């Protein structure tokens, strides 16, 4: 039996793919997370109120989601409900995260696959029109930076935000700064749309070349955003059947009753399943489970997706196109929130810390993220992090099998397999730092 090993780059964290083959038959496809830091143990004994500063360090890409989920878990334990304005500022934070993440995934991680280059920074003269392409890199980085700048505006620090606190946020958003940022987003939106259109075009061309959108069987989908106009500062998890029926709704605290979580012996990350079936989280799940985005510009893209691919849509390379839709949505939605007065009332309510149990939920770029804390004598007795990437683990391995069977035969391995492995994994945009924490 032969084992093919594929190291992975242009993803967040350290991972590799192993494919076992015997006489041209694919025996197994494994997605291996290769690092572990042990956050659930590290936080034992930490004073509970310090968690929102410590847990963003689980991941510098998804830090905002951890920051907000942590504050919400503590609020659940202490029984405090933040004021509406604080909720809006937290939504802004999470939208900043979506802009930053989707732009990074689209332009830095997966665009090189579509252009046949090693990286966004290696768009040399030979690749078509060198000048245009350098221009693409510059504009892509500009759009991406809007995300971290928005996190900074709404969250203080630009990578590991600090402004979400138990009971609200530590301060509002200054009106002059909000207006200036609103203008920046409005100016950048046409550029973002051009980039998304360009991305859609080169994806179509790639499909012509490789002959597939990464077809795979339908799957269950999971998200915590609502049916109409997604809110990433979310409260209920929903599951949809492969046929497109919404089949379950539950709160974060019911996670263990609804999903099966298991560890494996070949990866530092766990995985989940729903009623024995494969699930998918992330952008395609949200697109399939949202009726409308509530923003005209973004809804036009969503309609285009549905007219070209149906609803629900299942081919995995559509995850990437959906990130483009969400990039436009997040920029426009943040821009709308910034038009409101964000310093008109108290941003924070008083609270009394107490021992007990708390669950915090947000929709992170990769799906529903849950923080679960047990607090004893003011300290964390048990910290549990249920990471969205683990909902996609089985789906990633199944899609890898489809790709492997496509390119492996009894007498040869088509070298396109290496590129296919990268495309499949990047479509799910897994975050290994989070998945293993």
């Amino acid at each position: 039996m032969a084992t093919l090993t594929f190291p992975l780059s242009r993803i967040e964290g350290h991972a590799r793919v192993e494919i076992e083959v015997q006489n041209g038959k694919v025996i197994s496809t494994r997605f291996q997370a290769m690092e572990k830091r042990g956050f659930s143990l590290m936080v034992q004994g930490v004073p509970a109120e310090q968690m929102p500063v410590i847990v963003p360090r689980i991941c510098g890409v998804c830090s905002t989601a951890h920051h907000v989920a942590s504050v919400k878990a503590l609020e659940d334990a202490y029984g405090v409900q933040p004021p509406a304005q604080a909720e809006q500022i937290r939504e802004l934070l999470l939208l900043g995260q979506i802009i930053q993440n989707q732009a990074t995934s689209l332009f830095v991680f997966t665009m090189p696959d579509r252009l046949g280059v090693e990286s966004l920074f290696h768009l040399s003269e030979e690749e078509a029109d060198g000048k245009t392409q350098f221009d693409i890199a510059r504009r892509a980085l500009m759009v991406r930076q809007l995300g971290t700048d928005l996190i900074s505006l709404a969250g203080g620090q630009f990578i590991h935000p600090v402004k979400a606190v138990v009971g609200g946020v530590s301060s509002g958003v200054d009106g002059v700064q909000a207006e200036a940022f609103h203008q920046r987003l409005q100016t950048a939106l046409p550029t973002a749309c051009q980039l998304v259109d360009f991305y859609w075009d080169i994806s179509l061309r790639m499909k012509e070349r490789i002959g597939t959108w990464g077809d795979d069987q339908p799957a269950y989908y999971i998200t915590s955003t609502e049916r109409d106009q997604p809110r990433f500062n979310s409260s209920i998890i929903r599951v949809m059947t492969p046929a497109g029926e919404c089949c379950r709704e539950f709160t974060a605290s019911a996670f263990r009753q609804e999903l099966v979580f298991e560890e494996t012996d070949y990866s530092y990350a766990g995985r989940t399943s729903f009623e024995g079936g494969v699930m998918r989280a992330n952008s395609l799940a949200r697109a399939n489970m949202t009726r409308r985005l509530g923003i005209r510009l973004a809804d036009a893209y969503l309609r285009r997706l549905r007219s070209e691919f149906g609803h629900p849509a299942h081919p995995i390379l559509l995850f990437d196109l959906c990130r483009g839709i969400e990039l436009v949505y997040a920029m426009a939605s943040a821009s709308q929130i910034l038009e409101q007065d964000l310093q008109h009332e108290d941003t924070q309510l008083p609270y009394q810390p107490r021992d007990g149990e708390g669950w915090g939920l947000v929709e992170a770029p990769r799906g529903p993220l849950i923080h679960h804390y047990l607090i004893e004598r003011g300290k964390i007795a048990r910290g549990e992090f249920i990471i969205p990437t683990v909902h996609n683990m089985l789906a990633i391995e199944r899609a890898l099998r489809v790709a492997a069977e496509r390119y492996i035969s009894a007498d040869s391995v088509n070298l396109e397999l290496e590129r296919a492995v990268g495309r499949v994994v990047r479509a799910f945009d897994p975050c290994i730092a989070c998945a293993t924490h």
Partner: protein
Amino acid sequence: MQKITPPRFAVLQLSGCAGCEVSLLNASEWVEQFDLVYMPLVVSAYDVPPVDVLLISGGVRSDEDLYHLRRAVKHAKRVVAVGTCAISGGVANLGNRDEVRELFLSQSERRDLPRLLPKSQPVDAFVDIDLYLPGCPPTPELFMAALLQPPDFRASLTVCQECGRKKLKDMKPKHLTGFQKGEVLPDICLINQGYLCVGSSTRGGCRALCTRPGHPCVGCRGPSDTLIEKDSHAWLESIQRVFAALTEIPLEEVREALLSPQLALFLFQFSDYAGGGRPPRPKEKVL
């Protein structure tokens, strides 16, 4: 005309969170001034080639981290440790407590995967470092300064100097407010309001991103030049003097709070606090 080759640089990411890399992507000026030859987050390349500058982020957590670290520094002209994890282990130090390690190591047996070392360690436990760039993460401006090394670059001495909140002599809280609790008054020093802020001891250069919107400094840039060559006791005494001048909070209360996990990013940058018997990092080598 002879074509000028831009300097080549690489980014080696060990066990960390990639926050340093995300910050580096924001410093996009390097795109036109440097040739980025290795950075798995953004470039498909599987080995570190010879480079002019090697940036290393993350701590040494697994045998594979150590292998990559030792290989990469061999062909690098200048080695920069970036971020609090590479320099001191950062939050990973919370996992170095014996009671945590016992559980962690027992739960981490996997086949065919990198093996975890007994403790998370900073990179200078294994290789020589030419420049330290602390911060969790360092700002894009600091990244550019580390890459270009402009001779006139000087970060502010402390976060306090960049914060601009006023210190008052007649506003003396009697107890700590709690780490994040309560209304934050704009423009007034957070210590005057009872917050545990260590901005007066922390190396400047971050533009006081946390303290200005009202969150106390947790010291991610590490000790200022005044303190960096001293030990954690010298720091404790000096920061307690700051609290004594601005508050009436009992010293014991301040002391206990200063040694709590929220300041892991700061505390472990004192080599005596981290243990391991290494000398303090010389201030000339810290940006």
